[in-house]
């Protein structure tokens, strides 16, 4: 871990000599990381899909805590606002509203297990291979902020490049979202027969002559309008 030059970093980087801060940071890291792992496992293990989503939200909150420890306060807030605030809540609604038979979904689990396990083993061994090679070297160098962003908060740094350096891809991402929106409307929006819509023009154009009629009721027979 390199020091110096970075004043706005996580506590255990700015004052490593302060044992109490270091212990707090390490304690916080293991707390957050432990809860992320546990709630991640609970997400895929719990029988009730609603509980799964709630566990997922807990995992998101703790991952946000990990980001704060790294000094990435913007990402932490983004995680809470976007993932917890929007995505997970949307998941929750969808899971509650869809009548999915989860027992039927799990039916193929045992059959697919060998393939899944094989794939997992391959991927894990690949990761270990990669990690065994050169991760340590990279980790020592990766922590320094880029030139030109020293002394800035994350939010400032992101804001300073989003509309300048990354203007092209930023605007293009907007088009990607627009495409997704157009696609969703194309695939789901339909004009149902028999729906009653408000026609403002017709309402405004109503005149007394067209909407009031005089009838002479005959006693005992009522009126039909």
């Amino acid at each position, binding site marked *: 871990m390199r020091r110096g030059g970075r004043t706005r970093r996580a506590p255990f980087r700015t004052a490593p000599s302060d044992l109490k801060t270091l212990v707090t940071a390490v304690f916080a890291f293991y707390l957050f990381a432990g809860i992320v792992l546990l709630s991640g496992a609970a997400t895929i293990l719990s029988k009730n899909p609603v509980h799964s989503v709630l566990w997922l939200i807990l995992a998101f909150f703790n991952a946000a805590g990990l980001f704060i420890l790294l000094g990435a306060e913007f990402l932490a807030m983004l995680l809470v606002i976007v993932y917890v605030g929007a995505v997970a809540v949307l998941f929750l609604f969808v899971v509650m509203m869809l009548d999915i038979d989860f027992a039927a979904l799990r039916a193929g689990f045992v059959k697919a297990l060998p393939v899944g396990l094989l794939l997992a083993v391959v991927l894990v061994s690949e990761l270990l*291979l990669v990690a065994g*090679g050169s991760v340590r070297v990279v980790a020592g160098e990766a922590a320094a902020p880029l030139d030109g962003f020293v002394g800035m908060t994350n939010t400032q740094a992101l804001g300073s490049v989003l509309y300048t*350096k990354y203007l*092209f891809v930023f605007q*293009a991402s907007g*088009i990607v979202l627009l495409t997704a929106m*157009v*696609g969703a409307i*194309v695939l789901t929006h339909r004009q149902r027969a028999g729906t009653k819509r408000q026609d403002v023009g017709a309402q405004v154009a109503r005149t007394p002559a067209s909407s009031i009629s005089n009838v002479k009721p005959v006693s005992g027979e009522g009126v039909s309008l």
Partner: protein
Amino acid sequence: MHPTFASIQIAAPELVLTIGSLLTLMLGVFRGDRSLVPLTWVCVLIFGIAGVAAATGDQAAAFGGLYVADGFSAYLKVMILAAAAVSAVLALPYLQHAATGRFEYPVLLMLATLGMCMMVSANDMLTLYIGLELLSLASYTLAAFHRNEARSSEAGLKYFILGALASGILLYGISLVYGFGGSTNFETLSATLRGPAGQSTGVVFGLVFILAGLMFKISAVPFHMWTPDVYEGAPTPVAAFFSAAPKAAAMGLLVRVCVEAFGGMTFDWRQIVSVVAIASMLLGAVGAIGQTNIKRLLAYSSIANVGFALIGLAAGTVEGISGVLFYMAVYLVMTLGAFVCVLQMRDADGKPVETLSSLNGLSRSRKGLAAALAVLMFSLAGIPPLLGFWPKFAVFTAAIDTQLYLLAVIGVVASVIGAYYYLRVVKAMYFDEPAPAFAASDSRVNAGLIGIAALFCSPLGMLAITPLVGAARVAARALF
């Protein structure tokens, strides 16, 4: 001039497409589905303007190295825009017939094309990913465009799930390369990877994942599983679109990533590309034999053709890359021509039919159509005097020049096997007992498109070889 304005000028084709798609979207929203025909022609006009902008615009890097306009991107953009314009026009009779004439069709086509133009101009992993995702999102919607038909919805869903997985794999690869190579910019990466960083296992893993993600888009074996199902289920004009422009764009992207970003790791990616090319050629040739549906047959044909084009990339020389570009240009014409012929296959009630047996005896009821389809099939098979032979010849020569003899030999063997099923179509049309005749042609434009495609592939098309090869060589040289 402010650098941003200069950059915007260089990216003029994308700007034209963005403004054009927003404009057509607004027009469509206010005028409703009855505006499908005028909007389609507006869309073709905008493709034309963008094509002119791409062909004549300044060639330089823009937006701080995120985007680059060079000879390579100009060649591919003109090709993509032309193919997309044809895809927009050929769909009109079908869409009007099937009562799904929604105005969003040209809009989505333009957004997909915008994504493709970004892809071939990508000079950074970030632009690559955003462009690819833009194309993919529009494609998923187009595949499911016939939303009331189960097959179409299934095609859309299948494409979406597998495409999302491929995007995930691609992103994982990009993150590995960024982590070990230190940059997402192609030029910086190229410089870094020529050094010791190129030896690290992490970069090689990243390369493998990136190639896997891109191979999915060009439907090369072993990432081809979705192709026959999606082509069969998607509306025929959409299948025609999928088989043409996106293939060219993804192939261009693959070439640029391999030659530019991973230029120092040719040995590593050549192995992968060679194996994938061999697998695609063989599986495309063998898999098509048992098919009874013409759209599935064309899907396998596209898998095989991608394999042939990859031979040129495996060679990795200027000759090889220009072979790839030449191949894709000829392939686009052949596949679009074949799909317009498929669009003509409608029974007496006007309902589309897709079985091979319905082509039986076509030469007696529709002489012109049968002759055109026969020329296209012979050309796809690579029979010498027809145009389809020459790009195959170009990529095989490039492979032999780089001592990739095995690739060239297997390529020739695969084309011989593949010739069987192309000839089977011709045999059905000319020698089998007639099946019920098709409905008469409903569109002069489409009949004209078939005529142009057939003429282009006929020996007359050899006039086009010199200018096409010349342009492809200029384009390929931009990468070296």
